[in-house]
């Protein structure tokens, strides 16, 4: 079965032939299954935003192909409606708020879907619930009266209310306090539990690794890595390149493995590491009993 997102040999050049030409994407091939969670990492200017704008039809592929929910994004008629399928929350979405009340702001998307007002109402309430804006009367407040973090929640709710099949978040944590971050984490975790397809862009590798199982790394427009987080952990040269420090438990496990001990290295939590190490200790004790002195180097 084809994935919900299929990107094949996609390249993109901004302002081609002008003095400002930028090769933003180079031969990207990537796919995502329905229900998966993709973390998209890359330094600033690596092309992350360009890539995700291909997914909801804002940018049509110049070279290569993009297929989202079975729809070809290079078809202008299909790509125009792609925003309903793939909901893209821009970076700093609170800067794009323009309605007079929180309610109208969140209702903007559903109204553009031409839903009846009763359905709009239902979706707005549900979306506000999801982002934790449950205070009474908040719907009638002007967004300008809210704090930056609250405004971001409103903006995210505005996209959730469209109920897209894929939710794409462009650096949703940028400039947020810990309450705001937890709110975003909450939304992401709930989507993971319900197996709803999500793409999250971040320029923090650590942030992404703690959240996802699937990760793609962009570097100056090229795909530097794509696969499972566990596979990435086994590639210290990539990690070192991005100055990523492994968690201490993983450093220990890798060190043990490097010494030639048979220990599982694809683990993802400190508890698992503890279990593996005590397993090894148990083996050592048994071995010590049978063959004294053999494991003394450890």
């Amino acid at each position, binding site marked *: 079965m084809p994935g919900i997102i299929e990107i094949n040999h996609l390249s993109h050049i901004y302002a081609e*032939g002008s003095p400002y030409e930028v090769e933003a994407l180079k031969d990207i091939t990537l796919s995502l299954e329905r229900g998966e969670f993709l973390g998209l990492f890359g330094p600033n200017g690596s092309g992350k935003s360009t890539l995700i704008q291909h997914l909801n039809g804002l940018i049509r592929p110049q070279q290569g192909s993009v297929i989202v929910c079975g729809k070809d994004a290079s078809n202008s008629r299909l790509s125009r409606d792609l925003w309903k399928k793939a909901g893209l929350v*821009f970076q700093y979405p609170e800067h794009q708020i323009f309605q007079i009340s929180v309610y109208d702001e969140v209702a903007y998307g559903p109204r*553009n879907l031409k839903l009846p007002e009763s359905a709009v109402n239902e979706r707005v309430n549900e979306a506000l619930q999801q982002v934790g804006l449950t205070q009474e009367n908040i719907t009638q407040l002007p967004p300008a009266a809210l704090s930056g973090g609250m405004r971001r929640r409103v903006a995210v709710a505005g996209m959730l209310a469209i109920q897209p099949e894929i939710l794409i978040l462009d650096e949703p944590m940028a400039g947020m306090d810990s309450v705001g971050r937890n709110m975003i984490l909450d939304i992401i975790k709930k989507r993971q539990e319900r197996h709803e397809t999500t793409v999250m862009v971040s320029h923090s590798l650590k942030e992404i690794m703690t959240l996802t199982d699937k990760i793609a790394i962009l570097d100056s427009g090229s795909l530097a890595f794509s696969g499972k987080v566990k596979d990435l952990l086994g590639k210290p040269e990539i990690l070192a390149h991005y100055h990523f420090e492994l968690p201490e438990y993983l450093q220990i496990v890798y060190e043990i493995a490097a010494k030639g001990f048979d220990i599982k290295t694809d683990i993802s939590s400190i508890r698992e590491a503890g279990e593996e190490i005590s397993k090894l200790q148990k083996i050592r004790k048994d071995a010590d009993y049978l063959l004294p002195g053999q494991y003394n180097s450890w």
Partner: protein
Amino acid sequence: MTGMKLGQYVYGDSLIHRLDPRTKIICCILAVISVMASVNLYYLLCLLLLMVTAIVSARLNPKFIFKAIYQIKTLLLITLLFQAFLTPGKAVLTIGTITMTREGLALGSINILRLIILFMGSLILLMTTTPMKLSIGIECILRPLEKINIPVHNFATILSISFRFLPTLFEEASIIRNAQKSRGSQFDSPELMVKIKSYAAIVIPLFEASLSRAGDLGEAMDSRCYTSHPNQLRMNSLKMKGQDVLALVSVSVIVLAVIPVSILMK
């Protein structure tokens, strides 16, 4: 939206780039005057040739200029149609009660040519002059007005700040536009009301951002003790050279030629 960025400075090191900004501004003003004063086709073609020469010698990418002109196609088309239908003369085509005339078409084409020349002139000025030089140039030219208590310096500061933020503004506008499109704004809707309403979704956040930035900038200027005195060092950095005199003289000659040409043609 990104098309509006086309007027930006392009780094280069040609004669045109090196000319004093005052020279370029005055040449542009002279070109505007002569374009306005003449309806003679041959004379306008001469001016066009002058612009093309300037573009070639400044080594600007011609494809870029064509693209920029293509951006104002609607304006050009409207000009042509209005002239064609509203000028009395020999009928070429009749639609209902309005007729397109041959005289109108001729006049329309000439007006298009005029607009293109003006547009090219301003493009050359903007693409070969840094915003900083441009605003110093304007300040120097307007300096005499200080004698009658017009705060030229403040005006120039406002101008240079706007030059600085214009690209930022367009970039922001295009981001907001894309963000609203992602929520289903219909900027290309055939219904006018829908279209106008969706543009409000760009203009309001854009205004908000600009106002807050203006506030921040003002504070930053205050905290660095900004006072509105002309920057003498900067102004004195401008020096008219031989090439400037040459450019001014030759452009003046071409512009003054408009008088004998229009007398002869009458």
